[in-house]
C-alpha cells in the first residue's frame, strides 16, 4: 500500500523532486561546501561524483538532516524545507542509504523495515503478522527475495542494502540517496542492485547515486554532477561525458593514462613459494610461486578466497595443510611475527579494521613494524625513527601537515601510502597487497599504482589481490584467477584478457 502511494505521486514522472541552491557548509577551519546546486528529477538517476574530500558526503548528510546548512535553500515540491534533523528529512521523503548500514543486526528484516512505525494491533500490541506480510509485499515490489523473518545480521551486505531500500519504500520516500552502494558488492549483486534502482525510478522516485566508479555511472546514471573541493563543477547528461571528461572534471587536470600499463618487470630468484595450502575456512590446495621483482595478480569474484589467501600466507590466519617459504625459508611457526621476520607482509583490504591505528599519529602508524630496527636494548631512538618516517613521507609524497597528525585525518590514499611505508621501512622481500586502491580517489589510485610498479622494479615480489580489472591487467606480470578457494587458471601477462579472466573466475 505504501508503494501504491508512491506510484500515485510518481504519476507525473517528471519535474524536480528536490531543488538545492547555493548550499554552503563550513567546519572549523574548512569550507566543506560553497554555493553548491543540485536538482534531482523524479524518476531519474542522478550521479554525484568527486574525489574524497570533494564534499559529496557533506552534501548528502545535509540532505539526510545530519548536518545543518550554513547557506542556501532546499525546496521540495515548491516548498522550502528546513531539514533540521534526520526525522524531518525522513518526513520530507528523503531516505539515505549510507555506506555503513544502519540496521539493527539483532532484529529481523521485517522489524528493521518497520522500526520507526510498527503497525499496531487492536490491543495496542505490535501486529507482527502484518509487518511480515507488508515486508514481503515491499520486497516483491522492488523485485528482491529476502526472508522477512531472517535475522538481519545474518544477511550479506548486499541484501542488507536491499532491506534499507525496502525501508525507504516503507517510509514512502520520494528521494533515495545511495552512498557508494557497490563498494562491497560482487558483480552479480551490482547487477541486481541496478535492477532495483530501475524499479525505483519506474515508481517515480528520484535516485541520487554517489560513487567513485566511472563504469557504473555510465551504466546507470541519467545525469552527473561533479563536485571538487566543495564546489559545484558541472552538471551534464551522461551522454555528454566520456571517461576522460568525467575524470578531468573530478580531478581538475587531464590524466591521459590512469593505469599506465607497466613495462613488465625483470624477474629474479623465487621469493615466495606456496605449496598445497589449505585452510579450514576456504582455501583448498593452493600452490604458486612469485619471483623477486615480479607482480603476481590475483583475481576472483567476491568469496573466491583472495583475502583468505592473503591472510594465510603472511601468517595471520592459521593453515591446515601446506607449506609457505619466503626466499627459501619456511614460515614456521605460522605467525605474523615469523612472517615479518622472513620478509613477508600484508597490506590489508580492511584499512580501518586491520591496518590503521586510527587514534595514533602518522609517525606511530608508519614505524610500527620497523620499530625494533630503531631501538637499542628496547629503547626507541626517536631521532632515527623520525628521520626514517620523514624520508618515506617525502618519497611517497604523503600529504600530511605533520608527522604527528592523527592518521584518521588523512585521506584514504595517504593512509594507504603510510601503511605501505610501514612495511617497506622494515624491508620486505614479498608484499601482499589486498585491494590496494579500495576507497581511494582517482588521483591517489594512480599514485599507489605507480608506487607498486616502482617497488617491483626495485626487486620486491608483489602479490596483488584486486577486483579492479584495469589495475590487474596494467600491473601484473602474471595473473592467477581464483574461484571457491582454488586457483583455477594462471595467465601470462600477454595471454590475459578480460574475457578469459572472467571465464576462469566464474568456473
Amino acid at each position, binding site marked *: 500500500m505504501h508503494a501504491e502511494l508512491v506510484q500515485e505521486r510518481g504519476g507525473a514522472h517528471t519535474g524536480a523532486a528536490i531543488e538545492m541552491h547555493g548550499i554552503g557548509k563550513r567546519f*572549523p*577551519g574548512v569550507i566543506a561546501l560553497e554555493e553548491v546546486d543540485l536538482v534531482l528529477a523524479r524518476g531519474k538517476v542522478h550521479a554525484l561524483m568527486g574525489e574524497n574530500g570533494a564534499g559529496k558526503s557533506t552534501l548528502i548528510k545535509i540532505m539526510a538532516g545530519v548536518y545543518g546548512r550554513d547557506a542556501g535553500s532546499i525546496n521540495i515540491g515548491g516548498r522550502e524545507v528546513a531539514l533540521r534533523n534526520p526525522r524531518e528529512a525522513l518526513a520530507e521523503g528523503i531516505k539515505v542509504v549510507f555506506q555503513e548500514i544502519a540496521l539493527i543486526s539483532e532484529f529481523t528484516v521485517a522489524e528493521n523495515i518497520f522500526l520507526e512505525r510498527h503497525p499496531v494491533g487492536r490491543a495496542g500490541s505490535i501486529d507482527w503478522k502484518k509487518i511480515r506480510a507488508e515486508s514481503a509485499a515491499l520486497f516483491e515490489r522492488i523485485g528482491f527475495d529476502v526472508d522477512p523473518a531472517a535475522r538481519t545480521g545474518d544477511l550479506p551486505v548486499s541484501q542488507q542494502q536491499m532491506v534499507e531500500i525496502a525501508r525507504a519504500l516503507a517510509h514512502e520516500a520520494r528521494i533515495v540517496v545511495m552512498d557508494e552502494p557497490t563498494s562491497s558488492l560482487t558483480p552479480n549483486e551490482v547487477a541486481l542492485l541496478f535492477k532495483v534502482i530501475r524499479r525505483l525510478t519506474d515508481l517515480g522516485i528520484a535516485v541520487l547515486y554517489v560513487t567513485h566508479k566511472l563504469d557504473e555511472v555510465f551504466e546507470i546514471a541519467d545525469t552527473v554532477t561533479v563536485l571538487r573541493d566543495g564546489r559545484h563543477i558541472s552538471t551534464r547528461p551522461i551522454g555528454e561525458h566520456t571517461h576522460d571528461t568525467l575524470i578531468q572534471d573530478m580531478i581538475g587536470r587531464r590524466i591521459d593514462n590512469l593505469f599506465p600499463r607497466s613495462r613488465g618487470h625483470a624477474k629474479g630468484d623465487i621469493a615466495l613459494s606456496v605449496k598445497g595450502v589449505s585452510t579450514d575456512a576456504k582455501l583448498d590446495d593452493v600452490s604458486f610461486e612469485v619471483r623477486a621483482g615480479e607482480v603476481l595478480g590475483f583475481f576472483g569474484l567476491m568469496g573466491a578466497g583472495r583475502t583468505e589467501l592473503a591472510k594465510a600466507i*603472511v601468517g*595471520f590466519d592459521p593453515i591446515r595443510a601446506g607449506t609457505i617459504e619466503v626466499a627459501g625459508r619456511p614460515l614456521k611457526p605460522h*605467525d*605474523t*611475527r615469523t*612472517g*615479518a*621476520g622472513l620478509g613477508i*607482509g*600484508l597490506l*590489508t583490504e*580492511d584499512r580501518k*579494521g*586491520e*591496518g*590503521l*591505528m*586510527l*587514534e*595514533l*599519529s602518522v*609517525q*606511530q602508524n608508519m614505524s*610500527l*613494524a620497523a*620499530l*625494533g630496527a630503531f*631501538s637499542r636494548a*628496547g*629503547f*626507541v631512538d*626517536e631521532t632515527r625513527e623520525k628521520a626514517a618516517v620523514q624520508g618515506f613521507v617525502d618519497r611517497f609524497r604523503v600529504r600530511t601537515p*605533520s608527522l*604527528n*597528525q*592523527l592518521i584518521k585525518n588523512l585521506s584514504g590514499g595517504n593512509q594507504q601510502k603510510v601503511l605501505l611505508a*610501514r612495511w617497506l621501512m622494515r624491508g620486505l622481500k614479498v608484499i601482499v597487497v589486498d585491494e590496494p586502491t579500495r576507497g581511494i580517489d582517482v588521483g591517489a589510485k594512480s599514485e599507489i599504482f605507480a608506487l607498486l610498479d616502482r617497488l617491483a622494479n626495485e626487486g620486491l615480489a608483489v602479490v596483488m589481490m584486486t577486483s579492479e580489472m584495469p589495475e590487474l591487467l596494467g600491473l601484473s606480470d602474471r595473473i592467477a584467477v581464483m574461484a571457491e578457494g582454488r586457483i583455477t587458471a594462471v595467465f601470462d601477462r600477454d595471454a590475459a584478457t578480460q574475457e578469459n579472466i572472467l571465464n576462469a573466475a566464474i568456473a
Partner: protein
Amino acid sequence: MTSESLSSTRKPGTAFGLFADRSQIVLIGILAALCIAISLAAPQFYSEANVIAILRQCALVLIVAAGMTMLLICGEVDLSVGASLAFVGCIGMDVINRTGSLTLGVLAALAFAGTVGLFNGIVATRLRVNSLIGTIATMMMLQGGVFLYTREAVQNHHHLPSFTGLGAGYIGPLPIPVIIAAIVFVVAFVALRYTTFGRYLYAVGASENAARLSGLRAERLKLIAFVVTGLLVGVAGMILASLMNAGQPTAGRGFELTVIAAVILGGTSLSGGRGTLIGTLLGVLVLKVIDNGIIILRWNQDLQMVVPGIVIILATWLDIVRRRADAR
C-alpha cells in the same frame, strides 16, 4: 601517548613541556583550583603531616594505577586488583609470621599477585574471555578465597621493624611508600614513553589486528601488562599490610574503582590506544586531594563518592572541549 604527547613533549626549552602537555592542562587546572580552594578554607591542608598523609594514600593508588594504565592502553582492564590487594597482604603477613623473613614474605606476595595477573592474562588472551568479565570472576574468586585462607585478619606476630618501615618508614623526609611509588612511576613512564614495549602496548590497544599484522605478539604483550599489574598489586598489598599492621581480608573494597577512576580521569581511553602516565599521576592526585579535602573541610563524607563522580564527568567534558579547540 597521543599524537599530542609525542609532539609537544619535545617542545624545546620548556621544562613544563617535558612532563605535561596540553592534554593535561585541564587536570592541572582542576588540581590547582582544588588545592587553592581547600587551603583557603583549611590552612592545615598544607601542613607537613597532611601533605605526607595525602602522598602516602596517593602512593598506594599510583603503584597499581601505573599497571592499570598499561592495561587500559593495550585495551584490557583488571577489576580484581582490590580483592588481590587484600589477599596479598594476608599471604605476605602469614609467610613473614612463619619464616620471620621480610624478603620471603614480599617474594610470596609478589609471586601470588603475579600469578593472579598471569591467570587474568591467560583468561583474557588464551581463553579470549573479555577481561571485564574475566577479572570480575577473578575478583569473586579472590574475595571468597581469602576467607577460605583466613577467617580473620592475619596479625603481626613477627614484629619486624623493617616490615613496619615498609608502610610507615621514611628515607630522609619522604615516606617509603612514596619513594616506592616514585620509582614505579618513573620506570613505568620510561617504559611507556621510550621503549618498544610501551609503543607496542599503544599499538595493540589502538588496533590489535593492525599490531598482529605488523608482526607484534599482541597476546604476549597483553599478558605482560597483566602480570606487571599483578606484581604491582603485590607491592601495594605489602605496603597496605604494613600500614595496617595486619593482613586484612576485608581490605581493598572498591580499590579497583579508585584506581580505574584515577586512570580514566587522567585521560586514558577505556577503548585502548590512548593515555599517559602523567595523566594517571594527576588523576590520582586529584582524587586523593578531594578525599582529603572533604575530611579537612569536615564535609559530609558521603561526598567522597559524589564529588569525584562530578569531577570525572567535568574533566572529561572539559577535555573534549579542549580537543575541539585544539582542532581549530
